């Protein structure tokens, strides 16, 4: 189990992380979300011992992160990088050895991982021969081949097309089934919703949301309706408790102040009988993200320049 207890970090006048506390159990996936400069990467850097927290402590199974614990961690940094002139196989060997694995242990798995990620290249190719996407896959292999118990992925989906993003999602779920604790940050809330068991939202260094993904969404109530019906925007907006009505994916997105108002919307929408869609759901993570952080907060943070990732 990974445990962060009252972690704080400042850089000069900048409060990058403020009193951050959470836990992640084995076999669970945690999505860490927040706008640029919210403190996601600073959190990762403190877990990985790249920087020292000003206060609080971080432990893995009750132990501080030391050289031995590092063998159990797999990390994909946001900024990707490999040795361009070194062969793919040699790079995988190197990172596996740095994580305490022998070449004999790794050799039989290398081609399997290359196939799993569908890397377009051979183990004997130099990295510079690969496309950027395939280089990223090789880097993911270097982060995962030693079968880490704690996997930290900083924006793993950035730069991947939808097909490769799905491959990665599948692999993350597979690692979870193998018992690994996984944290990843992503700007794409759909990816977080799809597989994250838990979600933590950071805003300017503060934890503003923390819980199981489903529960977090449910806690906001079923205030979002997707509707495909003859009812007009004006008719829907006239219902008390309807906050907004917007065009969305060929239908209408109705935002409610109270889930109970959904009944009135349903009655209006079906007054003439059959309709093709009425889906009342809690807000998506993206909608929650916008609600919690708000455009004003984002604008303010950018203007002040006082946040750091």
């Amino acid at each position, binding site marked *: 189990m990974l445990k962060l207890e009252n972690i704080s970090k400042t850089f000069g006048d900048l409060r990058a992380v403020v009193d951050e506390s959470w836990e992640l159990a084995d076999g669970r996936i945690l999505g860490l979300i927040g706008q640029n400069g919210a403190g996601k990467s600073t959190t990762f850097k403190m877990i*990985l011992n790249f*920087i020292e927290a000003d206060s609080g402590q971080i432990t893995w199974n009750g132990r501080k992160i030391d050289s031995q614990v590092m*063998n159990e961690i797999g*990390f994909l940094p946001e*900024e*990707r*990088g490999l040795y361009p002139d070194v062969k793919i196989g040699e790079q995988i060997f190197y*990172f596996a*050895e*740095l994580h305490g694995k022998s070449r004999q242990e790794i050799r039989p798995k290398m081609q399997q991982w290359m196939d799993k990620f569908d890397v377009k290249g051979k183990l004997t190719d130099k990295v510079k021969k690969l496309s950027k996407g395939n280089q990223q896959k090789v880097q993911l292999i270097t982060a995962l081949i030693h079968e880490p118990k704690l996997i930290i992925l900083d924006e793993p989906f950035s730069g991947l097309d939808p097909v490769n993003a799905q491959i990665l999602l599948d692999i993350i779920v597979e690692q979870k089934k193998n018992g690994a604790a996984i944290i990843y940050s992503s700007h794409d809330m759909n990816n977080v919703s799809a597989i994250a068991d838990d979600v933590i939202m950071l805003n300017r260094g503060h934890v503003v949301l923390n819980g199981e993904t489903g529960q977090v969404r449910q806690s906001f109530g079923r205030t979002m309706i997707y509707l495909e019906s003859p009812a007009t925007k004006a008719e829907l907006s006239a219902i008390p408790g309807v906050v907004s009505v917007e065009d969305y994916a060929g239908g209408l997105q109705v935002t409610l102040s109270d889930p109970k108002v959904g009944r009135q919307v349903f009655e209006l929408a079906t007054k003439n009988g059959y309709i093709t869609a009425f889906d009342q759901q809690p807000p998506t993570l993206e909608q929650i993200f916008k609600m919690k952080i708000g455009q004003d907060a984002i604008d303010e943070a950018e203007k002040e320049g006082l946040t750091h990732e």
Partner: protein
Amino acid sequence: MNKTWIVAKHVFLKNLKSPAYYWMLLSPFIFILVGIGIAALVTNSISDNKPSLGVVANRQQVQAIRASLKGQADVRRQDTAAQARKSLSKEHIDAYLTVSSDYAKATLVSNNKSDATIDADTVRQAITNLKVQSAISSLNLTAEQVSSLSSPAVINSRYVSVTNGGTSNDNTNRGVRYAFAQFALVAIFIFLTVYVQMTGSEVGTEKGSRILDSILAAVPARQHFAGKVIAIVSLFIFQLIFYAILAVIAVMLAGPFGYARFLNLIDWSQLGSGYIISTSLITIGAIVIYIILAAVFASMVSRQEDVPQSTSTVMWVAIVPYFLGYAALAAANTPIFKIISFVPFFSQSVMPVRMSVGSATTLDGLVAFGLEVITIAIMLRFASGIYARNALNYDDGKPLAKLLRAFKKRRV
């Protein structure tokens, strides 16, 4: 295997497999061969292009001058000065010389646009010798007397070691050591240049390409730093061993290939094993010190393109002892050089020079090496801390300013 050694092995093998490393190993020999080739070409072209010198004098004198300038000028007799002038103006000759019968007066007139020029000093020396011989022969002396008068004085030179008010013989051939010290000065500076740049490139490239983030998630920064330093020092030692093997092969082939006589021109035994060992140790120590320094500076760059800037700072530090070494060749016994020869960062240039001229002993050299080892131990401790602090710091800023900032912080 310890993670430090895994890093060391990886960096060592990565460079060993790189064509650039082999070019670095072999390029001195290639450039030496090219230099020898160019020198041979120049020598040939010069020998084929001897200046022609017209001499206005009697036949005996012309023969004597021809003998004196053999190999240096093509001597042709001219009947009169007017004929010589004419030959010069038509460029049949490059210069002409008029000589009085007793060699007391001579005039050399040269064409300043001629391809082949004759050296006036050479002519002056030849005429002076002929003048002396002419004077001696007019005294009706015996052959032994003539030989005695014209042969140079014999001067025996030896050095003694002055210790505790007494003296003892010092049989070292300083010429060989002196030449070796001059060679070592240049060689050490070249080694420093190569390995400082290699270190800068190793550290700066990893940082600039952001691969360091992945590496430091697996290995603590201090261990990574130590591994890199070990690898680069190993590459240097590999280079020394490679050159030593080449030298042994060259000596073994000297007989069969017929160049042993050139090797035997130098009395290699005069170098002495103590001198060679202590100079080699001091050089290795200096390389380690400068590698550590270069790694620290390179860890402070944020972008790959800034790496040359960081290594140039280290090279400016290295160039000071290089020039001090040349100054020490002329004044090895002055107190300032005695002190500097023990100071790490400088000793690699000054101590071998002092030892070569007998101003320092092998023991002094070993003491200088010992001081380097202590410096390396201290530097490793501090430098790995600075490296750990800066390795993942991508702030813009000049390396020197960052270094000073790192020293100001409490926990380095």
